[in-house]
């Protein structure tokens, strides 16, 4: 797999990871799903999923570059991903519903 595709996947994993971590927070869950309840068990699972996804992004980065560079690429990718998730929540919160197929997003 060419390097740029690997790094693209890393970014996608980072995005998903940040998205799941955000959904695990009550305020953001409400933004996306409205009245639907988020059980503590689900919130915990979301956090695990988020963390693992971020770790996956790191592994992909390491596959492409020398360790020192990969670490930096990973840190900056996380920052970019967090920024994108934050802006999505501000203006198109419903888009994050794609991260949990099976739960309907709040229609408003």
């Amino acid at each position: 797999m060419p390097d740029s595709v690997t790094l693209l996947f890393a970014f996608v994993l980072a995005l998903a990871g940040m998205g799941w971590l955000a959904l695990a927070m009550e305020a953001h869950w409400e933004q996306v799903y409205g009245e639907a309840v988020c059980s503590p068990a689900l919130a915990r699972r979301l956090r695990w999923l988020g963390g693992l996804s971020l770790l996956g992004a790191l592994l992909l980065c390491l596959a492409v570059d020398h360790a020192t560079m990969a670490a930096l690429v990973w840190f900056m990718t996380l920052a970019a991903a967090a920024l994108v998730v934050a802006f999505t929540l501000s203006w198109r919160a419903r888009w994050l519903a794609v991260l949990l197929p099976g739960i309907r997003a709040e229609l408003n």
Partner: protein
Amino acid sequence: MFQNLRLSMAWLHTWFGLVLGFVLMIVFFFGALSVFDREIDRWAIPSSRFEAQPMPSFDQVLKPVFETMQPSAERIDQLRNKVNGPVPTHFTTPSVWGAYTTHRDPVLGLFVGYEVPNAKEHDTRVFALRTIDPRSGASLPDDRLKIGSSFFYPMHYSLTFYWKNVGYWIVGLAALIMLAALVSGVIMHRKLFRELFTFRPNKNKQRSLLDLHNLTGVVALPFHFFFAFTGLVIFAGIYFPITHTQLEPLHELHERLDAEETGLPHDRAGVAAPMASVDAMVVEAQRRWAEKGMAGEVGFLAMRHVGDANGYVSIYRAGTDRIALTGEGIHFKAFTGELLREDPPSSAVDSVNEFLTGLHLQHFRHWLLRWLYVLGGLMGCVCIATGFLFFVEKRKRQHAKQGSQGARVVDALAVTTVTGMVVATLGILIANRLLPDSMGAGWPERQAMERYIFWGAWALAMVHAFLRSAPVAQGRLNPAWREQCLAVAGLAVVAVLLNWATTGDHLLRTLSAGYWPVAGVDLFMLAGAMVALFAARKLKQRAQRAPVLRPESSGPAHA
């Protein structure tokens, strides 16, 4: 001083952040631009718009050029206070010849350091610089300003304020305060993790601004911290010159011991000797690197004690594939070409230091990481700018009621440092395209003209910002923000069009040829224009919606 930690940190963050924030805006913005300094150079110097070149043959291309290089009149003039007797006009004893290139350099920078006869201090040197086209050895004219690497980049670490290194100190202080602001910001921000993704643009202005300030600050916190910190470490020699002042004797002791150990002569022998083939030494160096599993290109070539029996040649590897700035230096005796020394692997401390400096100075080849650095730098700018805006918003109405001018002044300064700075940047790029090749008698050099136009444009922006700031004293928005956004959008488009008009390299051509450096600069400016237009439109909408507050109004108190 304060009742508790949080209050003291809040005071520190607000006031030191405000004052040094203006300097930090400059540092972050020009730092972000400096990631692509050599690409900006190529935009500014059309004759250098070709592919990056490896280090050329020393024996055939570089040696003839080195032999003809002499210091400029300006540099010779600076020697006046450093010599006993008349200042020499011609120099014959080079103590060092150097050539440095990276994977992003089409043209090659050369320097020669000459010994100065009759100097008051025996290790005084005068330098000659030259830029050549490595494919042919032809020299480029000296008065072309490399706007990226010789203006924006020095602006970033010294504000080009060289008198007694004051600029360096101001930037250093700002960096320290940046670190303090980051830590105090974290202490102040109670819900750091809970509000990590929080940005509420539809709430009241103060809340939205604070959200954005926190978002851009926290999300890139490691980046902001590390860049300020590594920047300080890089210039530690300036800020804490301990080993050249108080502990100088220890330093000298070490140098003597070191010279004996490494076999690299400290001084000339005084016996003339010709140089063996450096190209052969380069081949040998590359062979040794490959043997160690670190095959690579030559990054830096240096010859010391040129023409002397003690002369030696040092060859360093270009650091393209890793963060750390290792050199893997290999040294040869100039006269015979035999190996003198292969630099041993770095110690633990050295490796850490190389990593930290390499992180900041970015000699590596990784385009994605570079763009991510630019993103980080721009996030820093947004963080600082929203900080200013929050400061003004919070106090604007209060000051309006009290008839105070405080918020107005800060707001005008904020306009100057945010949009004004961008106006000045575009100004110098436009001047670069419009000024004639040689200015003619009576006018300052082209390089100097470009710089004057930069500062002039910035000064104009400042005057404009202050003249238009009266509404802020009444609790309203300064129209200068919108007007300068429109100016930025216009100037950016003009710059791109001028590039086309004066060089023929319009976007369709550069993109289809895959010539990213110039296309990248043009595209970045166009994207900036779009952002500026969008901002201007939003500001107009906001101005039309905002209520008008009069100082003697008896309206309800605002939250």
